[in-house]
């Protein structure tokens, strides 16, 4: 991160070299790329989501702003910026204003340990995924804060549901992460991606770069773990089929009912960023992250970004696809899935993977 910040600052004519010596500035610039990525990605996903959902339901979605409505996301953002930023009279004003930022900070903090390519990751700490799981707990607090501060029954119910959901799905997520970590022996997502470098057959999803017998033994367990990780991740993003916190038909809009204008936009941005974060974690842990599926063909730091974003976007697409295909779960079904299906399955997977690795 520091090198990138320094390199970018040195590109500025005349004063670049002096600026590169100011460490705060270097850190800020070095931490900015994921933010720029999130903003652009949100525009693309906004459009994709509308178009994909429309085509799934045999509609065409927007067609008038630009070619096939391609400028619609820009128009949407403009509308959101212009909108009056209302704060309900009986809301707790401070907390109401603070909550959306807290939710976004929690999400963005997670991006610090995501390796976009072998050359760039925000912070190369050895506790990568563990940090990411911890950072996501700030999101829970932000959601609770928004729900409570809105002083609205729907909001409060939505916030309670989302907190319950996030807390219980943290367990399968952490356990699933553990399986990949056991195989690679590192919590650092960059190390995990490097471990799987060298082609599609080395991905942990397919058993990792092990001798063939070990690989075949590992394969069913890693496959199940990946599925569970992705599903639990989807639940953490609060999207259908796990969108109980927002359930339009029951709770109006859930925790963000009272929000409008830019604050609503920040919630939306956080949700989209979280979608990518979940996909990115699943990709880095099980699908080789930035490494090319063709071994040394098309690999390198720049191709790494390409592969990483492609893999991530594929799973964002899967999330959109599932959202517009499946109905919402009931609360008891939600808890049942987490505690009685995913968690026991993962215990079996962890035990089996441990045993196979020892053998």
């Amino acid at each position, binding site marked *: 991160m520091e090198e990138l910040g320094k390199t970018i600052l040195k590109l500025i004519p005349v004063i670049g070299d002096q600026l590169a010596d100011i*460490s*705060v500035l270097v850190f800020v610039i070095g931490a900015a790329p994921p933010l720029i990525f999130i903003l652009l990605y949100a525009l693309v996903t906004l459009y994709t989501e509308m178009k994909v959902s429309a085509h799934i339901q045999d509609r065409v979605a927007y067609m008038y702003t630009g070619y096939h409505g391609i400028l619609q996301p820009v128009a949407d953002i403009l509308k959101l910026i212009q909108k009056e930023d209302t704060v309900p009279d009986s809301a*707790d004003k*401070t*907390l109401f204003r603070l909550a959306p930022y807290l939710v976004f900070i929690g999400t963005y903090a997670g991006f610090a340990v995501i390796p976009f390519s072998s050359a760039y990751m925000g912070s190369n*700490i*050895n*506790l990568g995924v*563990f*940090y990411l*799981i*911890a*950072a*996501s*707990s*700030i999101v*829970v*607090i932000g959601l*609770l*804060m928004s729900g*409570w501060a809105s*002083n609205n029954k729907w909001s*409060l119910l939505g916030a*309670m549901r989302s*907190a319950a959901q996030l*807390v219980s799905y*943290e367990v399968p997520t952490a356990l699933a992460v553990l399986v990949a970590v056991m195989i690679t*022996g590192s*919590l650092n997502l960059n190390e995990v991606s490097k471990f799987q470098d060298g082609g599609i057959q080395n991905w942990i999803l397919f058993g990792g770069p092990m001798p063939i017998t070990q690989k075949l033994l590992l394969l069913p367990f890693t496959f199940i773990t990946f599925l569970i990780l992705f599903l639990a991740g989807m639940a953490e993003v609060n999207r259908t089929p796990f969108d109980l916190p927002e359930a339009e038909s029951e709770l109006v809009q859930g925790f963000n009912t009272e929000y409008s204008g830019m604050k609503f936009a920040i919630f939306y941005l956080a949700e989209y960023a979280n979608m990518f974060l979940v996909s990115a974690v699943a990709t880095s842990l099980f699908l080789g992250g930035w490494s090319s599926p063709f071994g040394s063909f098309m690999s390198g730091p720049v191709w790494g970004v390409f592969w990483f974003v492609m893999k991530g976007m594929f799973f964002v697409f899967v999330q959109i696809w599932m959202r517009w295909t499946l109905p919402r779960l009931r609360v008891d079904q939600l808890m049942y899935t987490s505690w009685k299906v995913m968690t026991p399955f993962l215990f079996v997977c962890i035990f089996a993977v441990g045993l196979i690795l020892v053998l």
Partner: protein
Amino acid sequence: MDLFSVIFYVFAVITLGAAGIVVFSRNIVHSAFALLFAFFGVAGIYVLLMADFLAITQLMIYVGGILVLLIFGVMLTQRQIAVDIKTGTIQTIPALIIVSALAGTLVGMFWVTVWRTSGIPPVEPTASKIGELLLTTYLLPFEVASVVLLVALIGAAMIARREKKA
């Protein structure tokens, strides 16, 4: 002042400020939410001390677990069943005596203690070292702690699910 001290003071101010709100706020929900920033500030200081594992565990357990539960409880009691949780000041004089005694002891200890700093550079991959130690040298305390937690969990489930006798 170098970056290290700037960051230290930022986190110290966050921690103390938030802790102040926790104690002095009239609104119990504000107190609960301010705890988030207090925990966060402490975690930041742990990171500065190169105790990254401890910092993240702090966030994970205190913010992700305990604080969520706390806020849940406070939120439910405040608005749902309209119970006012008292946040006023009572028994000022005994509190003052106890607090000043405690503060005096702490400050005295800080004053008297000879702070040793080790010249050994911090261990780099902390997690694997901690994991090794937990499963070798400290295996028994580790297992005992997990058994205690399991007992607490089963006990909580038992109390919560006790069937009412007719």
